[in-house]
C-alpha cells in the first residue's frame, strides 16, 4: 500500500528525516542544561538557594548520578512533557509555556502572513519591471530590512504612532485594561473574540497587534522579497518561459501559471530560514511591546536566573522550528509535483 503511493512514501521519508534532528536538538539542550562548567544544581536551585537546598535540588534532579543516566532521566521527563519547575512562577515550565504560546504564535503568524502578502507581490513586480520605481523600492526595502534591528524598529514605531500621532494604543500587552480577555478557546485573542461575537474586544486586540506584527513583518519581509525577486528573474529568463512566449501564450498565463509557480519553490525554501529569524526576533519584539508570549517569559526568566524556564523555552522553540520546517517541506511536496515521484 505504501509502495503504491510514491508521494505518501516521500512524505513519510521526510517525517522520518526529522527524527535525528529532534534527537540532536534534545542532546544539545541536555548539554546546555546539565553538562556545563559549573554546578547545574546551583543554577537550578536559583540565586537565593543555600547549601541544603542546593543539595536537595541535586538529589531531586538526579544530578548526583553519571551523565548517561541523567540523560535517560531527562529524556524520560521530556516524554512525559516535564520540563522542570519554574522558580519565578512556581508552576511547571511546560504549563507556563503552553499558557503563553498562543500569544507568541498569534504575533508571529500574523507577522509572517503580513510579510508574505506584501513581499511576494513586491518581489514579483520588481522582477517583471526591472529598473522601474517598484524595483528600486524593492531594493531599498530589502537593504533597509536586513539592517534594521527589530527592537529599534519597534521603538521607532511606538514613538511615531503612540507618542507623536497618538493613534496606536499603549504598547503594553495583548489587550487594553478596559477590555476583558475573551474566553479561552484557542488562546488566539482574535479568533476567540470572533467566536464570542465580541466585536469590541476583537477590535481592541487587533489594535494591540498591529504595531508588534508590523515590526516583525518589516524584519521578515526583506529576505522573502529578495528571494522572490531573484527566483522570479531566474524563472523568467529560463527556456521554458521563452518557449511559452513563443507558443503565443498570454503574458498573464506565462507569468502566473509558469514563471510564478516555479519561482515559488525557492521562496518556500527561504521561508524556513525566515522562520528561524522570526522566532528569534519575536523575543525582542515581545520585550519591546510587553507582549505576554513565551519570548518575554524567557527574558523575564533570564533576569532572575530561572534556568529551567530558559532552557525549556529554548527546547520548545527548537521543536517548534523543526515542526515548522517539516510543514514547509510537506508544503513543498504539495507545490512541486516532481517531488515524490522521483526515487529519493
Amino acid at each position, binding site marked *: 500500500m505504501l509502495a503504491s503511493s510514491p508521494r505518501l512514501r516521500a512524505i513519510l521519508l521526510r517525517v522520518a528525516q526529522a527524527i535525528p534532528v529532534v534527537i540532536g536538538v534534545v542532546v544539545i539542550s541536555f548539554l546546555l542544561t546539565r553538562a556545563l562548567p559549573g554546578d547545574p544544581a546551583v543554577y537550578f536551585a536559583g540565586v537565593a538557594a543555600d547549601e541544603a537546598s542546593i543539595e536537595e535540588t541535586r538529589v531531586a534532579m538526579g544530578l548526583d548520578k553519571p551523565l548517561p543516566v541523567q540523560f535517560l532521566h531527562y529524556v524520560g521527563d521530556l516524554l512525559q512533557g516535564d520540563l522542570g519547575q519554574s522558580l519565578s512562577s512556581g508552576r511547571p515550565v511546560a504549563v507556563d509555556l503552553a499558557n503563553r504560546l498562543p500569544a507568541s504564535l498569534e504575533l508571529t503568524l500574523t507577522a509572517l502572513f503580513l510579510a508574505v502578502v506584501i513581499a511576494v507581490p513586491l518581489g514579483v513586480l520588481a522582477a517583471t519591471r526591472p529598473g522601474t520605481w517598484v524595483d528600486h523600492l524593492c531594493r531599498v526595502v530589502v537593504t533597509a530590512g536586513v539592517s534594521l*534591528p527589530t527592537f529599534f524598529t519597534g521603538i521607532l514605531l511606538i514613538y511615531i504612532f503612540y507618542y507623536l500621532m497618538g493613534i496606536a494604543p499603549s504598547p503594553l500587552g495583548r489587550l487594553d485594561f478596559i477590555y476583558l480577555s475573551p474566553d479561552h478557546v484557542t488562546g488566539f485573542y482574535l479568533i476567540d473574540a470572533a467566536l464570542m461575537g465580541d466585536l469590541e474586544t476583537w477590535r481592541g486586540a487587533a489594535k494591540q497587534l498591529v504595531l508588534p506584527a508590523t515590526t516583525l513583518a518589516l524584519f521578515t519581509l526583506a529576505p522573502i522579497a529578495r528571494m522572490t525577486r531573484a527566483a522570479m528573474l531566474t524563472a523568467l529568463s529560463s527556456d521554458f518561459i521563452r518557449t511559452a512566449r513563443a507558443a503565443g501564450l498570454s503574458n498573464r498565463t506565462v507569468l502566473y501559471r509558469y514563471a510564478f509557480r516555479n519561482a515559488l519553490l525557492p521562496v518556500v525554501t527561504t521561508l524556513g530560514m525566515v522562520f528561524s529569524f522570526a522566532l528569534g526576533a519575536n523575543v525582542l519584539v515581545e520585550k519591546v511591546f510587553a507582549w505576554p508570549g513565551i519570548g518575554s517569559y524567557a527574558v523575564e526568566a533570564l533576569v532572575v536566573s530561572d534556568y529551567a524556564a530558559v532552557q525549556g*523555552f529554548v527546547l520548545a522553540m527548537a521543536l517548534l522550528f523543526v515542526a515548522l520546517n517539516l510543514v514547509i517541506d510537506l508544503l513543498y511536496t504539495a507545490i512541486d509535483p516532481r517531488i515524490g515521484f522521483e526515487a529519493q
Partner: protein
Amino acid sequence: MSDTTPSDLPRQPGNLEHVIYVLRTNPVTLIAFGMFTFLILSALFGPALVPYDPLATNAGNALQPPSWAHWFGTDQIGRDVFSRVIVATRLDLTISVAAVAISFVVGSILGCIAGYWGGWADIILNRFLDTIMAFPLFVLAMGIVAALGNSVENIIYATAIINMPFYARLVRAEVNIRRDAGFVRAAKLAGSSDLRVLATQIYPNALPPMMVQVSLNLGWAILNAAGLSFIGLGVSPPTAEWGIMVAEGANFIVSGEWWLAVFPGLWLMFAVFTFNLLGDGLRDIVDPRKRT
C-alpha cells in the same frame, strides 16, 4: 629586433586594477569603504576624542534634548549620549569581530577536515551542523549565554557558535570540489603531505567567498550581540553599548525623550548597513557572476 618595452606588452588585468575598476563603476561600494573607515576610526580613537566622559553623571543636566553642548542630548542621569554612542563603537565592533574570527577559524578547520577526508568526520560534522541550524539561532544564543553565564566573553562564544555552520559548510564545499583537482594531484605527486596540500593548495581557494561571508556576517553578528544585550545579557550597565542603550532609552520613548534610544539605534543600523553594503561590494569584486 623589436622595440617593444615591457610596458607596451598587453598585460593581464591584475587584481588591483579589477578592484579599482569595480570601485569606480560602483560608487556605493566606495561609500561603504568610507563608512567602514569611519567606524574603524571611531572605534580606535573615539574614546580619546569624545567631548565628555561616557560614564560621568550630572543629575542637574538630565534628559536634555540635543543641543550644541550635547549633540545627542543627555540621558536620565545626565550622561552625554553622543560620547556614549561613539565610545560604544569599540565594544560592539570587538564583540562582533571576535565572534566572527572564532567562527571563521573553527569553521575553516572543521570544514577542511570534513571536505578533504570525508567519511565519518563528514557525516558527524554535517549532523552536528544540522542540529545547530535546527535551533532558531538567536534563541540558541540566548540558551548558550544563559548556560555559560552572563558575560561579554560568553556573548562572543554564543555568537561564534551560531555563525560557525555557515563557514564550515562553505569551506567544506570549496574543499570538497577541489579534493581531486589536477593541481592537487600534481602537488601530491610532488611529495607534499596532505596537510600541506590542504593548507597551501586547496584552502586558499575558499578565501574569497569566505571574505564575503565575513563581511555579511559581521553586520548580523553586531545585530545579534546588540539584541542579546537588549534583553539584558552580556553587557551590564553602566557600560556604553548600543543594545543596552536602546533598551534603557526604550523606557523614555513613551514620554517623548526620543534621543536616548534613537541615536544608539541609528548608530547600530549604520554599522550593520555598512557591513551589508561592504559584503555586497566585496561579492562584486570576488565573484562578478553573483551580482544581483
